[in-house]
């Protein structure tokens, strides 16, 4: 067996979706080229952007940082990073430490924000509450709010997240299966919020399968936090992911076709289902909110805080 591109016999990956065999160097190059292609095709970056990477220390965010850094080295953009410490015992600290080391390695501005310091509660403490709504609900809302706040503090013009092909396809299917047409209009490579307080979010890894990101970090010997969130198994996303991966075994192109199909109908969905949200402010914290309280503050109120 030889690399389909250069003939090197040391093949490290066989792509089921295309039959392509690649050696280490050609594989790394193919991932970086693909991400750059997505950035250009979707117009994710503008010259002079200051991009805030949501850096957990996991493979996806570290890869996002690594590849966006090539744009920084070409003086196209400036980079900074934020890490949210949700307060999950025996899990989070390793990722935080790795994120700190990557930021130091690249010499970029980096901020670590603890949920406990920002809101007075950890995710572990939330999960002790009776009738909680599931870890991902709270984690997602608090994390988004913190990242958005930090983006404004750091004067970032874009927020880059590590969402990969698998994440995006799961989101499409989850929202479809739940009939959540409102959320279905909001997916894609680049967010388009009308509220100025929401920094534009971009997903440079949107077309890279999760497994290939894992192979990329191992091939490039990047330090990442490989571990499972102790709350992950409680999510609907996990169930949807399992079904899609089962289908992908017999139908290796199914993730790409789901993404392509969604991209084709997204414009129509937005046109048909667009909603005009009230652009108010949360009366408690002042963050943008369509209701009296933003989601984060309404959760805190439910906790009696």
């Amino acid at each position, binding site marked *: 067996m030889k690399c389909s591109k250069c003939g090197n016999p040391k*093949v490290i990956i066989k792509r089921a979706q295309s039959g392509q065999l690649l050696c280490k160097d050609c594989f790394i190059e193919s991932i970086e080229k693909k991400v750059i292609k997505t950035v250009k095709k979707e117009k994710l970056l503008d010259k002079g952007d200051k991009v805030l990477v949501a850096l957990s220390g996991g493979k996806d965010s570290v890869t996002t940082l690594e590849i966006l850094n090539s744009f920084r080295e070409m003086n196209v953009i400036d980079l900074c990073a934020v890490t949210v410490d949700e307060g999950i015992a025996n899990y989070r600290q390793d990722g935080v430490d790795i994120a700190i080391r990557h930021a130091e390695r690249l010499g970029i501005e980096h901020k670590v924000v603890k949920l406990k310091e920002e809101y007075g509660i950890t995710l572990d403490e939330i999960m002790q509450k009776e009738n909680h709504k599931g870890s991902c609900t709270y984690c997602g809302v608090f994390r988004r709010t913190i990242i958005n706040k930090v983006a404004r503090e750091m004067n970032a013009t874009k927020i880059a997240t590590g969402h990969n092909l698998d994440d995006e396809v799961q989101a499409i299917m989850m929202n479809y299966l739940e009939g959540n047409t409102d959320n279905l209009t909001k997916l894609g490579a680049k967010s388009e919020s009308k509220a100025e307080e929401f920094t534009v979010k971009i997903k440079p890894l949107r077309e890279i399968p*999760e*497994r290939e990101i894992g192979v990329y970090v191992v*091939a490039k010997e990047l330090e990442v936090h490989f571990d499972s*969130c102790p709350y992950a198994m409680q999510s609907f996303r*996990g169930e949807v992911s399992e079904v899609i991966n089962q289908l992908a075994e017999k139908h290796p192109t199914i993730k790409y076709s789901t993404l392509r199909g969604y991209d084709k109908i997204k414009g129509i969905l937005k046109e048909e289902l667009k909603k005009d949200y009230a652009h108010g402010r949360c009366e408690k914290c002042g963050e943008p909110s369509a209701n009296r309280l933003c989601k984060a503050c309404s959760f805190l109120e439910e906790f009696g805080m």
Partner: protein
Amino acid sequence: MSFTLKYKDLNDKREIPKENYTIKDLLDELELSAQTIVSKQNGELVIEDTVIDDGDEIQLVQIIYGG
């Protein structure tokens, strides 16, 4: 004929049970999905079709955990 298996905290010497025993055979035996694992043979990344040789060190790295 044996090889060393490194996986998480495991560092085991194992017999090669048959001719042309591949990493895929090993993953099946361990009930691990090739989708969530990358494999190294003597420190170098390899694909799952790779045949395990006498004296090899096979390291399995879990890259997907879910969540």
